[in-house]
């Protein structure tokens, strides 16, 4: 890796994003709108005694899930464009290293996700009185980590798509199983054993558990830190796999 090249690449990706005002608007507005929808969906639901309200439970998880899904989609299309427009081929004839490009995407979209997560969290906490035992800062940190996981998986999956049609099809393949099995719909310890086993190898399960830990405990717990480490490991693994798909030479 070359820090000046990594910095130039990160800034270049952020500049591209800045020129695309509509995408920026969508990144900023959509999570808040969806949280509003959730709030009114659950506003009439009774809260079980001694447990968080349904909105609190689901909104907290969604603060991590939205950035994951959105950044997965944005990244897989952005990287596919690099591959199909010829810019990737040109980049590979320059001193740029593969990791400069991958980390550039990770950092640039991670920063965008940090902004997005801060706005979504502000909406959830200030407008809809989201109640978590732990701090909102930890929630935002985990949300950004989830976004970076989405970026890393998007970088990897874009290698298997030749067109944008194919790239968006990876969303249901990669994202929806993780969403179904992460403990949002059915608690993970209530699932059949084999489903639990599948859930145990999906990184989003740990991201959701980390958020639930923040929701239930005033101080960061060991489980939360372990979950954060697992998600971080999954990010590194996905980036290594993505680097393996970026060959300087191709057929």
């Amino acid at each position, binding site marked *: 890796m070359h820090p000046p090249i990594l910095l130039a690449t990160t800034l270049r990706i952020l*500049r591209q994003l800045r020129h695309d005002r509509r995408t920026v608007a969508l990144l900023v507005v959509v999570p808040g709108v969806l949280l509003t929808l959730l709030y009114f969906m659950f506003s009439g639901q009774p809260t079980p005694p001694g447990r968080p309200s349904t909105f609190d439970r689901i909104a907290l998880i969604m603060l991590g899930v939205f950035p994951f899904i959105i950044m997965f989609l944005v990244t897989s299309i952005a990287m596919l464009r690099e591959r199909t427009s010829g*810019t990737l081929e*040109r980049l590979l004839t*320059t001193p740029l290293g593969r990791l400069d490009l991958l980390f550039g995407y990770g950092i640039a979209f991670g920063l965008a996700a940090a902004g997005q997560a801060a706005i979504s969290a502000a909406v959830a906490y200030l407008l809809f009185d989201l109640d978590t035992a732990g701090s909102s800062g930890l929630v935002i940190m985990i949300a950004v980590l989830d976004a970076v996981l989405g970026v890393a998986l998007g970088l990897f999956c874009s290698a298997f798509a030749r067109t944008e049609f194919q790239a968006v099809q990876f969303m249901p393949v990669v994202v929806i199983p993780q969403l179904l099995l992460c403990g949002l719909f059915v608690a993970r310890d209530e699932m059949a054993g084999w489903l639990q086993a599948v859930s145990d190898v999906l990184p989003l399960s740990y991201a959701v558990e980390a958020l639930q830990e923040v929701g239930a405990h005033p101080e960061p717990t060991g489980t939360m830190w372990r979950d954060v480490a697992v998600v971080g490991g999954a990010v590194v693994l996905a980036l290594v796999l993505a680097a393996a798909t970026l060959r300087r030479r*191709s057929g």
Partner: protein
Amino acid sequence: MENAIDVRDLVVARGRRRVLHGVTCAVRRGTVTGLLGPSGSGKTTLMRAVVGVQTVTSGTVTVLGRPAGSAPLRRRLGYLTQAPSVYADLTVRENARYFAALQGQGSAEADRVVAEVGLAAAAGQLVGTLSGGQRSRASLACALIGRPELVILDEPTVGQDPVLRAELWARFHELAGAGTTLLVSSHVMDEAARCDRLLFIRDGRLIADDTPDGVRATTGVTDLEEAFLRLIRAAGSGDRGAPRDGTGPGVGGPRPDGTVA
């Protein structure tokens, strides 16, 4: 004179199809060498092998004394891909500054190359809003950053108006005069006469490696287009069953617009 590029017995297969069948050629330093041939003849594949992004089956490609694709070469060559490979959602200047940063160059160098391709007035414009010709010049600017010793240009003059095309060729010769080596592909035959040397490629085989005058002398005709037709026919007599009736793919029949199909 020392060669900037040495290609020996280069065989390349893309998928199951063999694209280059043992090409051997050389490009001398400080020249403008034209790589000419019909669309689909293997020009882009040969250029990709020279810049080191093409998987090769066998043979060797030596660039500036090193194996093609080796890391130190990445600071010494500029590559223009056939499709303009610049970011449509950045301005011309932002593109140039990014590619300059990759070569360790500052914004002054970026501004210089933008001016050099005649886009100074459009520097603040998004590439996506440019005309096709302007877009390909924006891409060309990025290939000239840092005054590379070797510049590989895949069809740089497509879509340019005749005045600009003449200016670009004059610029290529200025660069060569200053010691830069340029390998320029084209399927437009009237550009062949503008080159110091010609490599003519057809169906993945090299059928001429000579100066324009040398080609004229060999074939006995002054028109290079006609000369190449003769070379094709001469090579075709020993061909392995390629279609020769003028209807098959890649047959170099002349068109009224001066291109070869």
